[in-house]
Structures are given as structure tokens and as C-alpha cells.
């Protein structure tokens, strides 16, 4: 799964720490999400989408590996 979290966060001029505090997750989680090392739960994905006022699909994209 790919995401545009880093791009969107920077566009909103928010630090990782502040986003983490707003979403009540650790800063490492935000870093891992941005690097694509960790895929969020559906709840966290909804929280992120709601925080930026966007839909989940606008932030996260799923691409099948074999296609």
C-alpha cells in the first residue's frame, strides 16, 4: 500500500510530532507510515483522512503486486 501522507502533511505545514499528538499515536508511527514501512489500521486511516478533511482513497492507494 502506498500513501501520500508526507506530501499532504508538508502541504498543511504540520510537523510529524504535531500530527502524532493530534492522532494520539507515536511520532515513530507517523514516520513509519510515511516511509511505507507500516500500514495503518482502518481506524487510523479514517482518523488521518478525517484530520486532513479528505477521503482515505485520496491518501492511501492500494496496488496489487502481480498486476
Amino acid at each position, binding site marked *: 500500500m502506498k500513501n501520500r501522507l508526507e506530501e499532504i502533511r508538508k502541504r498543511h505545514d504540520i510537523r510529524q510530532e504535531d500530527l502524532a499528538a493530534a492522532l494520539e499515536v*507515536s511520532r515513530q*508511527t507517523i514516520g*513509519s507510515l510515511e516511509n511505507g514501512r*507500516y500500514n495503518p489500521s482502518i*481506524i*487510523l486511516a479514517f482518523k488521518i483522512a478525517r484530520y486532513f478533511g479528505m477521503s482515505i482513497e485520496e491518501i492511501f492507494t492500494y496496488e496489487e503486486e502481480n498486476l
Partner: protein
Amino acid sequence: MKKSIINYLAAVAGILLAGSGLFLLKFILEPQGIMRALPYLCIGLGCGIFGHGMGNIISEKVMKKHPDQQKQIEIEKNDERNIAVANRAKARAYDIMLFVFGALMLAFAVMGVDTAAVLLLVFAYLFVVGCYIYCHVKYNKEM
């Protein structure tokens, strides 16, 4: 509030238990049977319970002075990635434990160790596997 009362009670119970262990150790001359191990058991358990209770009391007092840090600790504790990492580590450790226990049972059997010890190990192994199967069935129904 209720939690801090439990911590105070644990600290007091720990002191009492360790104290009674020391008392038994000092005043029972030529102990027989279980009384040979009981004082040390009381001291060990007492110190453990006291340490646990006292540790919680101290950390609670410190956290009251720094609510921002308490919030951060709460976030770190409930962070979904941290929980996922811990669960993954536990799962891997469980897999390794099954191999280690299996090898140890085999080694004990080959070494000709006392049957009671080997059987205890086998039952402990089977109990752990039984817990795994129980939890698997339970979570399968829940999810």
C-alpha cells in the same frame, strides 16, 4: 484512587510477607520439609510484591506532577504500531520457544534425566500448546 490503594496494600503486604520470611528464617531451628524452603519463598515473594507496589506508587506520584509526560506515555502504550510490534515479537518468541522446548525435552530424554522432570516439561509444553489452541478457537469465534 482504587488503583493507588491496591498499590499501598501491595507494598504493605510485601513488607509483611518478607518480614515473616525473615522471622521464620531466624527463629525456626532445624526446619523440616516445606519449612526449609518457605522462609526463602516468603522473602522472595514479599520483596517482589513490595517492589512492584512501591514502583507503582512512585511512578504514580511522579506522573501526577507531569501530566504531559503521562499523556505521552499513555499514547506510546496504546500506539497501534507499538502493539503490533510487541505482538509480532511475542509470536516469533513463541515459535522459537516451541523448538527450544522440543529440543530440551529430547535432550532430557536422551540424557536419562529423572522421568518426573521430563514429564513435567512435557506437560508444560502441552499446556502451552493447549493455550495456543484455546486462544486460536476463541479468537476465531470472536473475529
